């Protein structure tokens, strides 16, 4: 495992070098430490009985018969936890008057979505636990489900909670919207649907908890060991110092493991009750029902423009489905979108309103992009509508409105200050890579000849805000925590380095990228660095991994910690070299005497001197280790131009992505291999929203898409090969880096749908609800041609329950 990709012309330092990943060896040889692999002496297995009703009163729970089943150690209903289980936390009360109902980890009196846990069995093995669930008797009094956010606020609608179905209304406005729309030559209004998605990390959730003498260790397939520890302490009352949380190898997250889950809390409580370690591992169908879902909005967007396509104002009104409860950041997700509807465009006025609505479905929460894909979809779709209305090229109408590269830093109508960007450069590169003009020519020819296979070009000139986040901004948005990140550098006496990060990776490659950053900063070999993360006992402080924050925040924390190491080393080097500290110059790896560069001390020698501590000056601490906590000044604003060429078979409705070009500007690149991988994976998830995926509930509130046979995660055969390119406008931080984890997902969904609509626009088609399945595309074509489109067999897919 020593082979390294050597790129011709690769940089001399580590930044920008396509290092192969340090974390791969254990993953490709099966020596992984997934939570479900963990076993402990006396380990017991937990299985949960889950509600078959979307909404019902629980009238009785009887676990007696289950206790007589072979191998069963215990069985509990919600009442058994009622006194100690508290309420699952929501850290983002977005308005002062938000309705935030209690959310017991195990339902006690009432269930509000299918899959909510109502009882559990603890047994000697997982088969025995699952078997005994059948012996538990629960009786319910069914209540009316609430399934459509468009009617949930109507008077007379059944209520999810006593306080009603509205959780909050959040507004933002800047500029004179009335003036912008008054007498505007062009006003376009559209309703767009953001369907509900299931994040579907490949590793199902799993939890192991041990409790010894009141001290708890929790292993969990989580993105957020640090946040989880604090929240578990707050929810259960267990003293925080007695809780250790470990995120071992974690098999993907995409936001779905950015949560404090019922099963984690209950595992802690069960381990405490029994004094035995317990494990719970979900099945995929259990996970589809009970891992938080993503998206699920109805968007009304209205744009006012001048006759030349110049935007005057934008008015956005969202209905956002919260599901049955508010989970960790449920209400905040659409607000992240609030700041992104204006995107890269200049305008005079903007108004945004979001109403959070309860339904009897699984709660929604962060899923890759979290609020920003939704916003980007709506604005990029309506920009195409504006172009079509004015008979302009969609790239042309964007260029008339976007912030020019010489205008950065630029404060948008939504109040964000974009530090950097070059939309012209990214767009020019994307046009070139796609062969834009030739494709437009082909499109014209196919239209003229009436080819049954039409071609469309979809444009998405996106930006996003990531690198979550400046703590004071989070405070102003009523978020319950800060947005800093922590790093520690431990200089070992042998000259090797341990890097401790609070940003806990689950596939992103931190062990490699962090080694590259520290190698450059300290001038030590990449191979001599080990990165540690994901255990609150090893890495006691952190804000974890989500929101494309790891590099822009956690990477900068590394730089700050390295600064401190270098400065501490200076004092010891001065003593070693018998010169004044001010007479030393730092070059990576070494302090040397100014004017006498041969006389110096390497950082490893200084570390050894600090370890021995025999000859340190008075008052100098015998260590050069350092910690740093970095709080960013601003968000990170990656952007790019994505172009999708799609062929639409007008006879079958089948969509084929012929080529997909993604040009991303993510600032300075630490590792191009990792960056490209993040872009590819992001594209796949965004394309999947456009073409394949939707969580579907039936009229009774049962989730229909409980398996991977019903919920269509695309395979290699379903996805195109991608053409990627980069432009680079460095961010205003010392590394010049921006986030990349979510960019592909945010950009690609509107690019694909715009391509499909562009292909079909001559038929008068202006929208197709996602996912754009062959059936939906075919029906849209039939309807546009005035034919009988038949009954819409999947009506509920377009709006929750019919």
């Amino acid at each position, binding site marked *: 495992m020593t082979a390294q990709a050597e790129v011709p012309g690769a940089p001399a330092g580590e930044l920008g070098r396509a290092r192969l990943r340090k974390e791969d060896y254990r993953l490709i040889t099966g020596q992984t430490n997934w939570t479900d692999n963990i076993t402990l002496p006396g380990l017991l297995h937990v299985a949960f009985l889950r509600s078959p009703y979307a909404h019902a009163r629980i009238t009785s729970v009887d676990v007696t018969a289950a206790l007589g089943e072979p191998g069963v150690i215990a069985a509990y209903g919600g009442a058994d936890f009622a006194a100690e289980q508290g309420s699952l936390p929501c850290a983002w009360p977005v308005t002062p008057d938000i309705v935030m109902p209690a959310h017991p980890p195990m339902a006690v009196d009432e269930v509000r979505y299918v899959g909510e846990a109502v009882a559990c069995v603890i047994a000697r093995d997982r088969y025995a636990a699952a078997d005994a669930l059948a012996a538990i008797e629960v009786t319910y009094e069914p209540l009316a489900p609430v399934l459509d956010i468009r009617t949930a606020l109507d008077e007379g609608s059944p209520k999810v909670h006593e306080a009603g179905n509205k959780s909050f209304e959040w507004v933002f406005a800047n500029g004179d919207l009335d003036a912008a729309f008054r007498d505007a030559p062009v006003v376009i209004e559209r309703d767009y649907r953001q369907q509900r998605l299931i994040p579907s*990390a*490949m590793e199902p959730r799993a939890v192991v908890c041990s409790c010894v003498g009141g001290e708890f260790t929790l292993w969990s397939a989580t993105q957020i060991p640090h946040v989880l520890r604090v929240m578990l302490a707050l929810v259960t009352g267990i003293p925080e110092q007695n809780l250790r949380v470990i995120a071992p190898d974690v098999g993907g997250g995409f936001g779905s493991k950015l949560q404090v889950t019922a099963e984690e809390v209950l595992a802690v409580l069960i381990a405490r009750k029994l004094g035995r370690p317990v494990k719970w591992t979900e099945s995929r169908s259990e996970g589809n029902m009970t891992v938080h879902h993503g998206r699920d909005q109805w968007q009304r967007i209205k744009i006012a423009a001048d006759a030349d396509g110049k935007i005057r104002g934008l008015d956005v009104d969202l209905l956002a489905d919260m599901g049955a409860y508010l989970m960790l950041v449920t209400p905040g997700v659409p607000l992240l979108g609030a700041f992104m509807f204006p995107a890269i465009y200049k305008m005079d006025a903007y108004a945004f309103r979001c109403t959070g609505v309860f339904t009897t479905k699984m709660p929604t929460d962060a899923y890759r992009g979290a609020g920003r894909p939704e916003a980007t979809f709506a604005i990029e779709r309506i920009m195409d509508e504006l172009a079509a209305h004015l008979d302009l090229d969609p790239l042309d109408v964007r260029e008339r409105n976007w912030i020019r590269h010489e205008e950065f830093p630029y404060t948008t109508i939504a109040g964000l200050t974009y530090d950097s960007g070059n939309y012209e450069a990214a767009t020019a590169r994307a046009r070139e890579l796609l062969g834009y003009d030739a494709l437009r020519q082909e499109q014209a020819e196919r239209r003229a000849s009436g080819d049954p296979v039409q071609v469309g070009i979809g444009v998405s000139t996106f930006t996003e805000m990531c690198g979550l986040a400046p703590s004071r901004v989070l405070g102003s948005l009523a978020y319950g925590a800060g947005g800093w990140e922590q790093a520690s550098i431990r200089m070992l006496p042998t000259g090797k380095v341990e890097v401790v990060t609070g940003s806990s990776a689950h596939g992103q490659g931190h062990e490699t990228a962090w080694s590259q950053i520290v190698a450059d900063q300290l001038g030590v070999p990449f191979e001599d660095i080990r990165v540690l993360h994901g255990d609150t006992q090893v890495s006691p402080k952190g804000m974890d991994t989500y929101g494309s924050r790891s590099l822009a925040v956690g990477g900068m924390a590394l730089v700050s910690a390295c600064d401190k190491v270098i400065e501490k080393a200076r004092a010891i080097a001065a003593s070693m070299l018998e010169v004044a500290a001010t007479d030393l110059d730092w070059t990576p790896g070494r302090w040397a005497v100014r004017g006498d560069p041969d006389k110096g001390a390497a950082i490893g020698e200084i570390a050894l001197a600090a370890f021995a501590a025999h000859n340190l000056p008075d008052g100098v601490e015998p260590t050069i280790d350092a910690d740093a906590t970095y709080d960013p000044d601003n968000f990170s604003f990656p952007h790019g131009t994505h172009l999708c060429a799609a062929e639409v078979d007008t006879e079958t409705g089948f969509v084929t992505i012929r080529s997909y070009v993604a040009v991303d500007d993510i600032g300075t690149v630490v590792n191009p291999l990792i960056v490209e991988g993040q872009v590819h994976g992001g594209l796949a998830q965004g394309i999947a929203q456009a073409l394949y995926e939707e969580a579907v509930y039936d009229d009774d509130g049962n989730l229909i898409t409980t*398996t991977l046979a019903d919920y269509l995660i695309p395979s290699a055969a379903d996805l195109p090969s991608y053409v990627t390119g980069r432009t680079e406008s460095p961010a205003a931080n010392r590394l010049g880096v921006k986030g990349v984890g979510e960019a592909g997902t945010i950009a690609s969904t509107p690019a694909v749908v715009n391509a499909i609509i562009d292909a079909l626009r001559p038929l008068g088609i202006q929208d197709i609800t996602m996912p754009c399945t062959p059936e939906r595309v075919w029906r849209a074509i039939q309807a546009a041609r005035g034919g009988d489109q038949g009954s819409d067999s999947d009506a509920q897919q377009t709006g929750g329950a019919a």
Partner: protein
Amino acid sequence: MFSNVGDRMTEITVTVDGVKYADHVEPRLLLVHYLREVVGKTGTPIGCDTSNCGACTVLLDGQSVKSCAVLAVQADGAQVTTIEGLADGDLHPLQRAFHEEHALQCGYCTPGMILAAADLLRDNPHPDDREIREGLEGNLCRCTGYENIVRAVRRAAAAGAVQ
């Protein structure tokens, strides 16, 4: 594990990664649970319960199978190769190619993806990209978007991965 129904236990002999094991198992025990929890081969993970994701793919007498869709008793007398026993030495060419092409991120699908690819290359030593994509359509990855997985299989094929 799974010892509470003694009268229904069946004895099986399975060779896993070159080592012969004889165990008494419940007839309903899935091969993947046998591998993970009886033999201790946790390199084979479980991603779903409907044979859709392919994370649990192993070779059963040289053919790729989803070990969540095979009963342990069906493997009686068979040879099972998991990711832990694939390499004849340090790394199998597919393992090396996955590393070199950055064909994994979280790595959860990787063992199954590599074993499915091994079976694909056994059938078709020099597949084109379309054949690779179609050959791996029973294995889902949520991180990579598949681009680098296709490149890795192509690279391993070029290196003569079939042994």
